[in-house]
């Protein structure tokens, strides 16, 4: 088999045999392991490609524009309203105890540590993992990927690495902006709903954050960007079954990357809290 992820290892011929429950389970397990192996190979290759040329700067800039600038409207809109909702929900509770001034602290910590990175990750996954999977999948079924290889271009360098790198670079920036407009939304809701002063909200919001929170809030999007881009590329480049397969791969890319983002978030939160305790 070619040492490329595009001729997947799961495609070995298999001997004809009778159908049994254990046989089906074993085959499914083997297929799963083969898929994880191919995905890991592709994900690792997307980064090791950076060590050696050729590099595709124009493709990287195009992808940064698509993933970064293209995702800006949904990230800003959702970020703003999440900030508003956070203040409305927490503010009503704090008001019962006469502690509405604490709203800024809670919204700030929740947004920067958790909601900003995770929700931005899921929204960008919904938009970009789907876009990447359908674009690469369509290229695969129309033999454009084979044409690229036939003309001496490594598709993992030309197609995968620019997308992964663009997502790695853009996701923290998008998250930072989502956090900021979320706090703006929170501030607006605090002023109009809780009758807090904007200065008080911002002062508390900023003082509530320490370096550990910022680190946690910026570390997660890097991982989430990597997940959504690699899953999108993997599902796109392993499409089987023509245009119907492209549709299936697109759906799977969104579902898998969203679930992986939530799972990764759990472990990254634990890791970040551990590091915060040890270092800061």
């Amino acid at each position: 088999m070619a040492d490329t992820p595009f001729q997947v290892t799961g495609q070995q011929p298999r001997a004809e045999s009778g159908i049994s429950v254990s046989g089906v389970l074993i085959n499914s397990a083997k297929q799963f392991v083969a898929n994880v192996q191919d995905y890991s190979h592709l994900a690792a290759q997307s980064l090791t490609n950076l060590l050696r040329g050729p590099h595709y700067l124009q493709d990287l800039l195009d992808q940064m524009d698509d993933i970064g600038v293209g995702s800006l409207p949904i990230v800003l809109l959702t970020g703003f309203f999440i900030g508003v909702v956070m203040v409305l929900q927490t503010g009503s509770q704090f008001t019962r105890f006469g502690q509405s001034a604490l709203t800024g602290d809670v919204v700030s910590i929740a947004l920067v540590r958790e909601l900003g990175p995770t929700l931005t990750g899921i929204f960008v996954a919904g938009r970009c993992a789907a876009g990447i999977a359908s674009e690469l999948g369509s290229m695969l079924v129309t033999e454009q990927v084979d044409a690229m290889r036939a003309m001496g271009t490594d598709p993992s360098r030309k197609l995968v690495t620019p997308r992964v790198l663009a997502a790695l670079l853009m996701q923290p920036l998008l998250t930072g902006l989502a956090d900021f407009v979320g706090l703006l939304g929170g501030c607006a809701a605090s002023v109009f709903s809780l009758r807090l002063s904007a200065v008080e909200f911002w002062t508390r919001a900023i003082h509530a954050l320490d370096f550990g929170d910022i680190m946690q809030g910026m570390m997660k999007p890097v991982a989430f960007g990597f997940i959504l881009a690699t899953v999108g590329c993997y599902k796109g480049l392993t499409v089987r079954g023509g245009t119907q397969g492209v549709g299936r791969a697109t759906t799977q890319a969104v579902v898998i990357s969203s679930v992986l983002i939530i799972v990764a978030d759990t472990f990254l939160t634990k890791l970040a809290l551990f590091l915060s305790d040890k270092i800061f």
Partner: protein
Amino acid sequence: MATATSIEPSQSPVIEFDAVRIGFEEGEVLRGISFQVMPRETVILLGETGTGKTLSLKLAAGLLKPNSGSVHVLGKNLQSMSERELLRFRREIGFVFQEGALFDSMDVADNVAYRLLEERINPEEIEPQVREALRFVELDHTMDLVPSELSGGMRRRVSIARALITRPPIVLYDSPTAGLDPVTSQTIITLILRLRDIYGVTALLATHRLQDGFAMANFHFDQKSNRVLANAKNGAARNADTHAPTRFLVLREGEIYFQGSPEELAGSNDQYLKRFLL
């Protein structure tokens, strides 16, 4: 089975398949096929859908590796090469895909120039080469169009221009006339004849249309008159016309069912082969 008569025995094959087997989950597709393509020869891979014609071309380009057996191209064993070496090596091979496989995101000029752009050649040097390649396929007026604005036949012609831009010694054609009307098919075959007779390429042409193969065998492109002419029927004149011989290779159920000259195929009494002749 006969081999083309005008090939000198001392010449080594350009493409050589030796007991090549390949299969996927659905089962084995090629079951031990062996054949050779000599320099300047055109081998027509004839077969019904699903008999492994496209797979054979992809194996010859190193896009797939066989499960067993070996594929040698230009004297190199493709299995022993890494993907990185193969990428470099594939620049010796032009590949015309079935539907053209043009890049949707690029215009016609960039599609044709793709290999040159990849090699970071100066844009001023690229432009005339692209124009010449597109003029060869009579589409130099389409440079600024995108593939979706082209007809099916035009896409194939651009694909041929893209394959010939670096003057590769080998060109692989995957069903270049499939799904095209007879007039457009004739245009494509004329281009393939011109490519063979002007640039002297060695070709492997997969098709399910017998007439494509016979057109390659019975006609040649005359550079002096700039026309496609029928080969002389016999004698020295015929040998002069058929300096680029054509041979047929019929695939059936993953095996080579027939290998021989156009005359042998036309004269065969085999029932299966006669289905192609009807």
